[in-house]
């Protein structure tokens, strides 16, 4: 098992290096000249010589491998360059935004986790009864509406009409609810089907008949026999849906005026702010690689066949 885990970790590290190369390529090939920008920021009427001096300072004339090494050490210490648009350092701006996005995705993930387990399990427990039908309905709804539409609908109903929660912003628990539901509904829909269908398939397998022969009731069989068998599939799907939520943050954060990484990324793209875009991409890609690693390890731990390999 350990060897399996360490192999996955090694693969992830390789991917991470490739990801940094990709982001660096973006920096190198960025149009426009950062030196011009910085020179203009320093003094409105900078001369050609000034610009050349800054180019020298920034190492823009160094050979590519040297520039990559410099960029990488910078990135590792949180120095991700300077925004073309604002002239601010990208690193600190990003650092202040990561917790916002993390909170959005973690909250949405919790919503998805709870809803999917409750509805998926209830549906399998009482097939074709009201929890099953309701679960399918919500799943269909969640899967067929884009998140900006869900968000707009929720804002209209709960913030504008009922005035239960703020329409936007990030101020205390009441302002968290709508964004969490908005971002978590689609994953909840997908995952509840994963649970529902997975449990049903497990219940049709011969070991479920053995469980019946033991005298266990249906609830116990679903919990003890069926659930452990869908764990690897569920973890896999949960990982994929977490990815979906990170992408969804790009839409949901601006909708609720949450200043997260998604919102920063969108602004960066709109203003062709390459330094911001590459920094966001670096964060996103690193997160996806980490997520994949966690999913792999989760699957190794929940699948007895994988767990025993190489130990």
């Amino acid at each position: 098992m350990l060897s399996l885990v360490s192999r996955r970790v090694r693969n992830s590290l390789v991917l991470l290096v490739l990801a940094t190369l990709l982001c660096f390529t973006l920096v190198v090939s960025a149009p426009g000249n950062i030196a011009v920008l910085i020179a203009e920021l320093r003094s409105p009427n900078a001369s050609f010589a000034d610009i050349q001096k800054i180019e020298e300072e920034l190492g823009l004339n160094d050979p590519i491998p040297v520039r990559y090494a410099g960029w990488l050490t910078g990135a590792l210490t949180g120095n991700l360059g300077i925004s073309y648009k604002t002239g601010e350092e990208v690193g600190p701006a990003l650092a202040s935004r990561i917790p916002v996005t993390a909170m959005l995705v973690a909250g949405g993930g919790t919503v998805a986790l709870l809803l999917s387990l409750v509805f998926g399990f209830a549906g399998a427990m009482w097939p074709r009864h009201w929890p099953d039908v309701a679960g399918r309905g919500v799943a269909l709804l969640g899967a067929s509406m884009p998140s900006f539409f869900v968000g707009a609908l929720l804002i209209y109903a709960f913030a504008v009409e009922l005035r239960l929660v703020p329409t936007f912003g990030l101020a205390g628990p009441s302002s968290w609810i709508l964004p969490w539901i908005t971002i978590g509904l689609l994953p909840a829909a997908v995952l509840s089907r994963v649970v529902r269908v997975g449990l049903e398939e497990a219940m049709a397998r011969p070991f479920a008949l053995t469980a019946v022969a033991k005298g266990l009731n249906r609830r116990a069989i679903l919990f003890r026999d069926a659930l452990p068998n869908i764990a690897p599939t569920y973890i896999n799907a949960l990982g994929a849906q977490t990815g979906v939520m990170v992408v969804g943050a790009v839409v949901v954060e601006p909708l609720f005026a949450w200043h997260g990484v998604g919102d920063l990324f969108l602004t960066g793209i709109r203003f062709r702010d390459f330094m911001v875009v590459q920094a966001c991409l670096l964060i996103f890609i690193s997160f996806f690689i980490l997520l994949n690693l966690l999913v792999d390890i989760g699957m190794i731990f929940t699948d007895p066949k994988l767990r025993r390999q190489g130990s």
Partner: protein
Amino acid sequence: MSTSSPILTVRDLCIDLFTARSALRPVDQVSYSVAAGETLAIVGESGSGKTVLNFAPLGLMPLGVSIHVSGSIRFDDKELVGMNDEALRKLRGGSIGVIFQDPMSALNPARTIRRQIAEVAELHLSLTSTQAEARALDLLKMVRMSDPEARLRQYPHELSGGLRQRVMIAIAIAAEPKLLIADEPTTALDVTVQAQIISLLKDLQKRLNMAMVLITHDMGVVAGIASRLAVMYAGRVMEYGPVQTVLTAPRHPYTMGLIDAIPRAEDLPGSAFRGLPGMPPVLGPPIPGCAFVERCRHAVATCETTRPLLAPTADRHVLAACPIVNRSSEALHAG
């Protein structure tokens, strides 16, 4: 032939089976009984209804099949036909233990052997999980598992077929059942392992004084372990009686054919297989006459129309459902 009164008595059991596509009667007026410490073997070709007969009344049918049961099954002074689900559930795994044919798929791949055995003791013997896990260890010793402590921590995929079947047996006897039903427990196993499993079952049955119903294809197994034999054909019992008598002097043409088909030592290598000619009938609505008529060389016209009932033969311990062969006794049978 057994002295004690039977713990399981099946009378005129009929089971109709309905799926999305078909309706059929795989069990048709079946009667038999088993006493504590006794083994009844049920033999019959594939599809003759052995599994449905034993498992459907216990609520052990795969999903998507609905059944209708009529007749009577008295077990331990309780009537099982029409019993409510909850009462039936308490019997399953408690006073009735069950072993399935395929040990490779009958165990849960995602759970340890320890939990899969222990939960039965928790449920039916009201043990705490620590006590139940200690009992799981005892049970693995009872089913003669080597290195039982290590086995408890393992998962099914780490065990061979024979070991998995031992685990299945441990699960079945965990609550010391009064009746053990084993559905072809050795069919899926290697020949060498088959004999070990059969002798294990025999020993456990003695030790726990269980009644046992053993479904099998193997006449060798029947002779070694069972005291009584029921021969099934197309959902009906064709012959029923003490094993030795039925095997040496069958009274029903179908049984005669079955026994004749067993390979013998004096068979020349490559000699023709002496099977019964023809195929068993496709099950559907109840057959009006004798189900065996199409393959029977003793058949007469009335066999097509009148259903022969299980009736005592010249040896009154043996019942056979063939009035033609048993009408005027020995002369016909000898042929």
